[in-house]
């Protein structure tokens, strides 16, 4: 096929857009490992800034990880059963509630934070604890977990599977853990990745809820940009990206895996059986 000038025009345009988006990221990343950003790369590469960030801000890294894992734990414990109850319920209210669950995406994190501060801000012990941020993160991310699991439940005939298990003598808990949970794994995994990604990267809500002693990475990052030299905040950004990258890759991989699973498996011809009794 002969490539027309319009093809090269489009290609050029696409590359330009990519460059426009990628260059700042690359600049920021290189800034984080450059001896002196204003002199440029020629001043030499170093991990000094990264080390500096790790010593100044290590508590924000640990808190971010702790928060993300705690949010995930709560979402798994609450979100998966909640999704099951919702999907099982035949009432109109359950359907309406499923719709409402999407709303927090539209409600800014700031609004959630404000509401939390008004409601519980007076409780000093809670206000100064990292648990306060945890509550915010759970409210913010739980709907994503529930949605992901509900979607899978609606796509499999889980009632029938459960009836199958109960006909074999399995009580409720057994059915839930042997049949429901494993068959929702795809939804649970994508809900979990979503939870981790959102929690690690969340800024608005966390910024409102944090105290000097409960700063997460994004909040610390904003702080660094305001008060530290550019190389340090850039190194900080680099660390942030390194934390998020595996999550983004895992999300991508999970999406591919689920698409592949959704495709009907190739049927191998059945060997002809001569009878069932022998």
């Amino acid at each position, binding site marked *: 096929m002969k490539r027309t000038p319009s093809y090269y025009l489009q290609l050029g345009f696409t590359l330009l857009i990519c460059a426009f988006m990628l260059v700042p990221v690359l600049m920021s990343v290189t800034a984080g490992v450059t001896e002196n950003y204003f002199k440029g790369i020629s001043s030499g590469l170093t991990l000094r800034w990264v080390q500096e960030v790790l010593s100044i801000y290590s508590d924000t890294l640990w808190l971010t990880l702790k928060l993300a894992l705690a949010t995930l734990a709560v979402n798994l414990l609450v979100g998966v059963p909640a999704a099951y109850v919702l999907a099982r319920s035949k009432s109109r209210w359950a359907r309406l509630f499923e719709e409402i669950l999407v709303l927090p995406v539209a409600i800014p994190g700031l609004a959630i934070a404000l509401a939390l501060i008004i409601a519980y801000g007076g409780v000093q012990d809670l206000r100064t604890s990292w648990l306060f941020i945890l509550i915010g993160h759970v409210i913010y991310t739980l709907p994503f977990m529930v949605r992901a699991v509900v979607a899978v439940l609606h796509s499999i005939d889980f009632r029938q599977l459960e009836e199958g298990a109960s006909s074999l003598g399995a009580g409720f808990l*057994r059915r839930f853990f042997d049949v429901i949970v494993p068959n929702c794994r795809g939804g649970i995994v994508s809900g979990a990745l979503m939870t981790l990604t959102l929690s690690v990267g969340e800024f608005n809500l966390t910024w409102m809820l944090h105290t000097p002693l409960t700063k997460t990475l994004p909040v610390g990052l904003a702080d660094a940009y305001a008060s530290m030299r550019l190389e340090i905040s850039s190194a900080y950004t680099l660390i942030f990206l390194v934390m998020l990258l595996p999550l983004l890759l895992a999300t991508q991989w999970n999406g591919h895996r689920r698409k592949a699973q959704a495709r009907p498996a190739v049927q191998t011809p*059945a060997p002809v059986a001569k009878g069932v009794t022998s």
Partner: protein
Amino acid sequence: MKLDQQGVSIRLENCSKTFADGNRALQPLDLEIRAGETLVLLGPSGCGKTTTLRMIAGLEFPDAGGRILFGDEDVTRLPIEKRQVGMVFQSYALFPNMSVAQNVAYGLKVQKCAKAEIRQRVDEMLQMMELSHLAERKIDQLSGGQRQRVALARAIITNPRVLLLDEPLTALDAILRDRLRADIDRLLRSLGITAIYVTHDQEEAMALGDRIVVMDHGRVAQIGTPKQIYFQPQSDFVADFIGQINAFEGEVRNQWMTLPGGRLHCPHLADGEARVYCRPEDIELVDMDSVDAHLQGVVEQTQFVGDRNRLWLAGIMPRQVLVESSGRVEFAPGQRVGIRVRSEKMIALEPREPIRSESVREVSPC
């Protein structure tokens, strides 16, 4: 393989079912299933077969006043997991997260059998169902017929008190259906288990059932052996539903019924309006000039189906009459033929409702 337990007798007493939406799916029903018997619930879609089966399984509960007994034990309020039933669902309900062997083992695992015992019994069961080579396969890597056998294996390995099957063959194509029907028949006979089999296919019902319960609109229309149901239907509905049948209706005077195509000898009927049924294979074709050719018609359509010819005759009744004859005789459309119906082959039904327009079911090929 014989099961340790031969199954129980089951009794339904006064079991009706009204769903939450107010839909009365079952009228009060009394039913007795003998130990070791295969009972088939047969009827058109929506007549309440599945509801009855699910009530016996413990997936639905009868309205107040109904009782379900397994042997002497009242299980009316017992949920399915406590009833020790085996169930084969229409869509099989196999667990996609488990392999074939794990699916079959699941019931034993729930019963907390020892690992070694589970392995041995699963191996035996897989071998018996000719599934051994598929043991490690996932469910989505199986064909329909294989899934069906896995579902059966999974249901019977726990020695259930009763085996419940809800249209287990409906999802399969015709050839496979015939083969598996024979397999299931052999399996049920060899196990000697009490089994309840739901189907809307009358051939399947005839082939498998010790007794058949024909259901219509949430009621039992007739209970009997396949032969009784086929040869002595007690209502128009049963006569229509089971196989193909011709209806002759007219005025009887001095043992003869007058029809558009001649007369029909009915020595067993009193004078007055009457209706008799006759199976297509019970109608004899006779020469036009024979003394027996009291009824005459014109061949409208023929269909050669190998072992027999199917002829649709016009002019005998307002609707076509279906006759089946040996496949070796040739008939051409337009040909005039005489027929004879021996009175002992006739099915007379009393009391009668007005004849329904669809009373000659499936007879017309158009």
